[in-house]
């Protein structure tokens, strides 16, 4: 009996840790030299909060942070690239990532998924994949984020004066096209 229980417990623990998530993937790859990782907090937007409407303020508050992970495709990393891209695809197939929309074309594709429910979006995931350049995963994490907040967040972005130098690592990835 004891053996069965401990087996079950072990199984539960095992299955919990085994569950792949995009978050774990990010953690794993942040230090990987093949990847470019970028974490942005709301402060990078550098918004003057005094000038915001109540709706925009709430939108800004619901936004916690944004993580970006990108891998560039080059002549020498084709195999590794394929493997990583397949891994991301597998992770994103998990049921917790609900698809909102996707696009596929000659040059690549993109998909938008989310975690949570319609009125409380915990996480937004944008996966973009270009056949020549590489792929990028962008996670937007929120707290009590609603669809309305997202629409309003666009307005916040318009009013922000963020320093584009912070995105320089990303631009470097895109260089050499």
């Amino acid at each position: 009996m004891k053996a069965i229980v401990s087996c079950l417990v072990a199984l539960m623990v095992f299955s919990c840790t085994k569950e792949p998530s995009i978050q774990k993937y990010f953690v794993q790859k942040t230090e990987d030299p093949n990847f470019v990782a970028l974490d942005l907090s709301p402060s990078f937007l550098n918004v003057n909060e005094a000038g915001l409407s109540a709706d925009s303020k709430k939108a800004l508050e619901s936004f916690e942070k944004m993580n970006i992970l990108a891998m560039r495709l080059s002549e020498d990393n084709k195999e590794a690239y394929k493997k990583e891209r397949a891994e991301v695809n597998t992770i994103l197939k998990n049921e917790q990532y609900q698809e909102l929309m996707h696009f596929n074309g000659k040059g690549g594709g993109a998909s938008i998924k989310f975690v949570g429910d319609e009125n409380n979006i915990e996480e937004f995931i944008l996966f973009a994949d270009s056949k020549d350049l590489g792929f990028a995963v962008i996670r937007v994490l929120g707290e009590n984020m609603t669809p309305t907040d997202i629409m309003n967040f666009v307005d916040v972005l318009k009013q922000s004066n963020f320093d584009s130098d912070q995105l320089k690592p990303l631009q470097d990835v895109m260089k050499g096209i």
Partner: protein
Amino acid sequence: MKKLIIVIAIALAPVLSFAQGPFDKFDGNDEVTSVVVTKKMFQMMGNVKHQESQEFLNLIKKLNNLRVFTTQNKAVAADMRNVANAYIKSAGLEELLRVNDKNQNVRIMVKSGATETRVKELLMFIEGANGKAQETVLLSLTGDFDLNEVSALTEKMNLPGGKELNKVKSPKK
């Protein structure tokens, strides 16, 4: 026995509704540009409190799936036509409109719902779209919506065939 069938049908319904659609094989094909919007997206957009027109928001909540496939490849276009024709027959879609204009050929098919203008599925098949590009476009929209509302969507989302849909709308008014 009857009960059992109903139970099985209900149990299977979610599985079946998640099953691959007849057009999904075009998704991811290198020669095809595809856009797929899911029900979740429509629900989410419908919940947005924004200054969008109420008509648009009302419609959006009633939509399930939008799929648009576009190709310039002749072989794929021919395949699309076959798949679409086979599907129209098997799903019992009725032709709503057919327009042959210069080199462009537009067909709009619907699966009617409770009333005449109530629609469960709208399928649009366009050949020779976008002038010289000679694209073939297959558009499928499912849900439970009114035909008169769809033009709001085609306008907002810049979908192909909006002009033709408006033609459907006007004679009925």
